[in-house]
């Protein structure tokens, strides 16, 4: 039986400055199916579904989309909704100050005589929630509900617009297992009613539970299409990885591992609002002197949160033990972490570097106390220090007085590293340090990690790119849903193993 296509996309190309996000994508969605859309970060999934939902207006991309055989060219979210395509965004997008009913009918309020029909809206909202079996008071304030319920309300809202195609972008990222099961029950009920659904997820196990069909995207194209059956799992994983499946561990042999420089035991990082499960729940790991430990996990696995928690920068409560050089320490703030010789190289360089300031000023920012004489800044000493680091890390710039904002991404990242080395840090937490950096510079940065480890630094490298970890790390710990699920060493570190562990298949 060949199901009728509900939607067909032909030759979709969407360019952003400097990058082709979707590259001649052809895709068909059948009537009444749950289609999972998979792909690594940057594969173009989000851009594509945003095109379908009208976030990127018709005309800003090339190609043609047909909805039930007719051209589908939405220029706005409202228009896409009117045509029956609704997106439930990854971040739960609600107005917490408004009631559930007000949120559900935002921008589509029922009116009588030009004014909002308040009782009518409430009644309609209750009817829809009941039909969808969400046990929520429609008059309650949205902000008082937990995340999963908000998510369900958002879905109910999308359906209330007579959606024929419902797009769920990572709907489970913030949910607990129970909440995920609740969501899936509803999705099955919808499928039974003939609603077509695109389900975008990183979590392979979930995809195989709920989807009928899987489409894998890579580099902006459809890289493969599979029925969701147990025997296709290997193919799906391979399609996500691309041709590099055979990549072997290319890192150097594990360094003679010294004593543990940083040890974390049973660490919990609680959600600041206490509204979802702890992003990090009970992780233990240790990084030796001269070791590069990789930390790998999919979106929402808790890698970034763990690094922030160790550095004292996590906004929520942190429980567990942290040991530096074998001594238990309490790290309540970044200042304390720096005091223990820990530095954090942040993913977002705009956040951690002062762009208008010069290289020298940025380098000494975290160690100002050491470049003073009688409480006043010792400018010559400061310049000496900056010049030394510029040479040591090969920061390419006209001089130490160059504003950091004018440097390339790779060199900015080196300035961050220099800042921590200047404080005498021996433990570096690297959070996706090569994100947005071109391939050549990336290689150089990765060499820098190796050099630093040979000098005895302990490095914890958080990366969303398995390939990078395979290249650089001596050991990799994989997190899933906030817990450590595996540890790979030396030649065992392969992209495939990392991804399987992280996705739970």
């Amino acid at each position, binding site marked *: 039986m060949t199901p009728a296509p509900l939607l067909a996309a032909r030759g979709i190309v969407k360019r952003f400055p400097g990058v082709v996000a979707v590259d001649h994508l052809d895709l068909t969605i059948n009537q009444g199916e749950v289609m999972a859309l998979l792909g690594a970060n940057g594969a173009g999934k989000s851009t594509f579904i945003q095109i379908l939902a009208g976030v990127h207006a018709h005309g800003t991309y090339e190609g043609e989309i047909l909805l039930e055989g007719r051209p589908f060219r939405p220029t*706005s979210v409202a228009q896409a909704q009117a045509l029956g395509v609704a997106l439930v965004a990854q971040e739960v*997008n609600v107005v917490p100050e408004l009631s559930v009913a007000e949120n559900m009918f935002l*921008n589509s309020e029922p009116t009588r005589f030009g004014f909002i029909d308040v009782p009518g809206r409430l009644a309609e909202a209750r009817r829809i929630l009941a039909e969808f079996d969400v046990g929520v008071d429609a008059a309650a304030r949205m902000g008082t509900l937990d995340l999963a319920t908000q998510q369900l309300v958002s879905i109910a809202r999308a359906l209330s617009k007579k959606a024929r195609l419902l797009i769920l972008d990572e709907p489970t990222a913030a949910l607990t297992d129970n909440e995920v099961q609740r969501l899936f029950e509803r999705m099955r009920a919808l499928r039974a009613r003939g609603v077509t659904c695109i389900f975008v997820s990183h979590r392979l196990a979930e995809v195989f539970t709920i989807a009928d069909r899987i489409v894998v995207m890579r580099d902006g194209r459809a890289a493969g299409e599979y029925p969701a059956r147990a025997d296709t799992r290997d193919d799906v994983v391979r399609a996500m990885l691309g041709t590099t499946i055979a990549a072997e561990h290319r890192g150097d042999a594990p360094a003679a591992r010294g004593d543990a420089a940083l040890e974390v035991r049973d660490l919990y990082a609680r959600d600041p609002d206490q509204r979802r499960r702890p992003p990090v729940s009970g992780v233990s790991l240790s990084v030796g002197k001269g070791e590069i430990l990789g930390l790998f996990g999919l979106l929402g696995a808790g890698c970034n949160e763990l690094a922030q928690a160790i550095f004292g920068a996590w906004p929520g409560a942190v429980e567990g033990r942290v040991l530096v050089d074998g001594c238990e320490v309490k790290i309540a703030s970044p200042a304390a972490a720096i005091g223990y010789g820990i530095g954090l190289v942040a993913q977002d360089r705009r956040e951690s570097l002062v762009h208008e300031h010069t290289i020298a000023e940025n380098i000494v920012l975290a160690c100002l106390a050491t470049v003073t004489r009688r409480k006043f800044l010792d400018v010559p000493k400061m310049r000496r220090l900056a010049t030394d680091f510029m040479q040591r890390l090969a920061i390419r710039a006209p001089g130490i007085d160059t504003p950091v904002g004018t440097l390339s991404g790779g060199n900015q990242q080196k300035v961050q590293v220099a800042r921590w080395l200047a404080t005498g840090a021996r433990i570096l937490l690297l959070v996706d340090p090569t994100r947005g950096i071109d391939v050549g510079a990336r290689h150089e940065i990765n060499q820098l990690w190796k050099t630093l480890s040979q000098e005895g630094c302990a490095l914890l490298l958080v990366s969303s790119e398995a390939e990078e970890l395979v290249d650089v790390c001596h050991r990799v710990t994989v997190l899933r849903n906030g817990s450590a699920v595996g540890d790979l060493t030396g030649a065992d570190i392969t992209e495939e193993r990392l991804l399987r562990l992280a996705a739970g298949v």
Partner: protein
Amino acid sequence: MLGLGKLRLFGRDAFRDSTLLVVVAAIWIFFQFTTDGTFLTQRNLVLLALQTSIVSLAAVSAVMLIVTRNFDLSVGSAVALVGVVVAVLTVNLNMNPVLAVVIALGVGVVMGAWQGLWVTRMGVSSFIVTLAGMLYFRGVSMIATSGSTIAPLPDALADMATGFLDPAPSIALIVVSIAALAAFQWLGARRAQQLGLLGNNLAPHLARRMVPFVVGGIAFGWLASRQGIPYLVILVAAAATAAEIVMRRTPFGLQLYAIGGNPEAARLSGIRVNRVIFIDFLIAGLAYGVTGVALTARVGGAVAGSAGLFLELDAISAAIIGGTSLTGGRGRVFGALVGALLMGSLNNGMSLMNVPTFYQETARGVVLLFAVAADQYRRTRKPSARKST
């Protein structure tokens, strides 16, 4: 402030509103004792209402902007400029007052549109756009009048702000307003009943809703029985009612809340954020016109240098004290009126006590700080309290 209670269409913020009312009541009782009974006389309360009216008008539009995370620092200067327009047209050019007022309102809307364009088209933050407006609107007013006062306004215009509706029609107006409100409540309740949201017996529901309005109506009736209601107070009540209906009962109003509460959610709901904000500035412009005419008429002439000075700060303070959130998404017109009344009561009471102006300013500053801090404290504690129940 006829029919203030009318604005409480929903019960959601009733608790907050009533705590604020308790604070106002406490301040009133305090002044009643310290002024030997002068404060709570019909004469003084009517004066208080008049003194509060200009800030109230400005506060209404301040709420509408602040809920979208926009600010208007130009209100005071814009109002002065509108005043200059009215005064020049009527005093220097002998124009018909009604025509002059219409032109002044138009000028206000144009000023609002001008600022709205800079915010929505050029993407300049409203804080900066209106800070600049605060400077050049005042500057233009001074240039146009060479800094001199333009007075006196024709009687017809001055009467609009200083005149009173006679006691008998005033009381009739109050009764009609309450009756109209009751009718709307009944219609709403009946529709809710038809939709199965309310039980068979509507009487207790309606009675509960109408009690505060009836109490308020009786109080206003007593105030009006001596001299009647000032036209200016009727204007404030009409403006506030219109604003409240727009905010709570039209899609446009809800879009304002949504944009302030979560701009991304608003955008993804298909709301054209810039368009809505532009219209919001048009409304603010209309408010310049109304407030400018009212202020000029009340003062009896245009004083470019001092008219409306610090009005923007008073308006924002009133809105904030009344529970409008600076981070957007939350705010009620009714609350802002009570906020304005609170600030006005402090001024009025301290003046009656012969407290020097400098001390009055200090006291107002402290009250603003405490009011916002208390609100913040209450709000940050609330979620945990809810969790434990």
